[in-house]
């Protein structure tokens, strides 16, 4: 039973289908141990965006006010798709890196643990 409804066979409209985003898809980005930025962020991105554009421009732009941002050494970053560790190919697109619509991209920066190491 996927819903308790008056009419049998009731289905709901999925409000956030990828077709509704005018050629873009949603990507959620979460930097662990940097909770001064209170929650993961949500950005619209083209599905053919090369992964390298995230590290070159987009992610530093999201976390611009954090003093750790300038210190990130990208080759040392640990990446997770949801909870699964993976190694992205910077030249390939988000789609080819397995990041579809509403994917959650998490990253850890070993040695950088927020304001005075507090996780903030």
């Amino acid at each position, binding site marked *: 039973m*996927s*819903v*308790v*409804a*008056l009419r049998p066979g*009731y*289905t*709901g*409209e*999925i*409000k*956030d*289908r990828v077709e*509704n*985003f*005018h050629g*873009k898809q*949603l990507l*959620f980005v*979460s930097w*662990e*141990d940097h*909770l*001064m*930025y*209170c*929650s*993961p*962020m*949500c*950005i*619209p991105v083209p599905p053919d965006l090369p992964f390298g554009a995230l590290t070159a421009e987009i992610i530093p732009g*999201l976390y*611009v*006010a954090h*003093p750790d941002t300038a210190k990130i050494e990208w080759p040392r970053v640990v990446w997770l798709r*949801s*909870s699964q560790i993976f190694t992205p190919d910077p030249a390939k697109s988000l789609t080819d890196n397995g990041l*579809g*619509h*509403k*994917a*959650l991209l*998490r990253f850890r920066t070993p040695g950088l643990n*927020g*304001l*005075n190491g*507090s*996780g*903030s």
Partner: protein
Amino acid sequence: MNTPLAGKRPKTLSLKENYALLTRGLGWDTTYEPMDKVFPQDKFEGIKIHDWNKWEDPFRLTMDAYWKYQGEKERKLYAIVDAFQQNNGQFNVSDARYINTLKLFLTGVSPLEYGAHRGFAMAGRNFRGAGAGIAAQMQAIDELRHAQTQAHTISHYNKFFNGLHDYTHMFDRVWYLSVPKSYFEDAMTAGPFEFVTAISFSFEYVLTNLLFMPFMSGAAFNGDMATVTFGFSAQSDESRHMTLGLEGVKFILEQDPDNIPIVQRWLDKWFWRGYRLLTLVAMMMDYMLPKRVMSWGEAWEMYFEQNGGALFNDLSRYGIRLPKYHEVAAKEKDRLSHEAWATFYNYTHAAGFHTWLPEASEMKWLAEKYPMTFDKLYRPRFEFWREQQQKGRRFYNKTLPMLCQVCQVPTFFTEPDDPAKICHRESDYRDNKFHFCSDGCKDIFDHEPEKYVQSWLPVNQIYQGNCFRPGADPTVPGFDPLLEVLHYYGFHVGEDGGEFQDSPDCKNWERWTGKPGAAA
């Protein structure tokens, strides 16, 4: 009308007879149409009722008595509101930051009173038992009265402070107001039994002390007599509502053993949804009241862990246990308010009220109340933000947050066993991914995904281009989508939101009262 005969006392009914005639006596079994067609909504949830006459209304209130009591309350309430207005009572509150508590309540909670009016009117129509139907209908009228008294309070405060000018427009649009809105709409779109279990029992009986108590005693502590007045006037109805909740749930449980697992699932769900809604109260208690009543952590221990624990002990004889994930709420009590306030500090430029950093004395209070978490996890970010603010670089987060598919709160909550790691949960359904802030919200989705795939998530709607005013043209050079969204919300940009220290409210307060905007 009966004209008494000369020399004879008119015959009067006993209270019991009067009650019976004016409630049960108003119902009948239909014959032209089958009862199932007249009451089509009281079976699909799976609840089995064998004898509606077992419904006990402990108040035995009839309509004639109801009008009399409520009329008296209204006269008293408006006399006090008039006096408050004539004496410029709004300037007697502790300091101008306090007004933001009120803005949060009046824009976030007052529309729920109106929602409750609608919900109970529907429940009253849909119960086939006349006793239950009339109790729900009276509550529907109570809720309309509460919405109205609060609208009059909004009207008064709106003359002096920003952010209250169009609360009904905002309620249907603004990102954080979608949290209370979706909570209530979830209940209203369920069947009548789930609705009363959700609102009358889980919310009004189990959690209400954590909503009204902090707001109303907070108002009294901070000199806001207008709010205390509507609060007390509403509270006098709440005791009746709470009883309806408790008696309603006991009635359902006693009618058929098959009802027990259904009710337990609702209690699990509505405990969690109500608790997530109370996040706003937690931050209000710990950060927004210039004079604090008690900490959120203390309130949770007293009102849920102790009182709620005793209640569920009593219900164990029906086979009901404590709601699922109550232990997660206990683990979160030392962090909830700090995580929430930090989130509003991040996004206050897109809110209809102001935020600020706690003063040194307030940080000391927070450290005392939260010795396990405050200095270690939250003080560093507040101190960094203060440094930035002093350099003229007040921190704002310019990117929209990820939202939970069920509670619609930004996913800032942390893992039950690790307060430094964001809690992520997700489900795949019909080739789409859905994200949640907690196991509690994920369970709710997984049980009824067809309901929650329809969530109107404000952030996702903005990115779909659905949150601009009619005629806005995103192709015009220099178009600023986020600024356009604030106009769509009906905000007065630069006045309603942002840092308190920089706000017209703060400056006006100092000009009008000669007192500092923040008195701490």
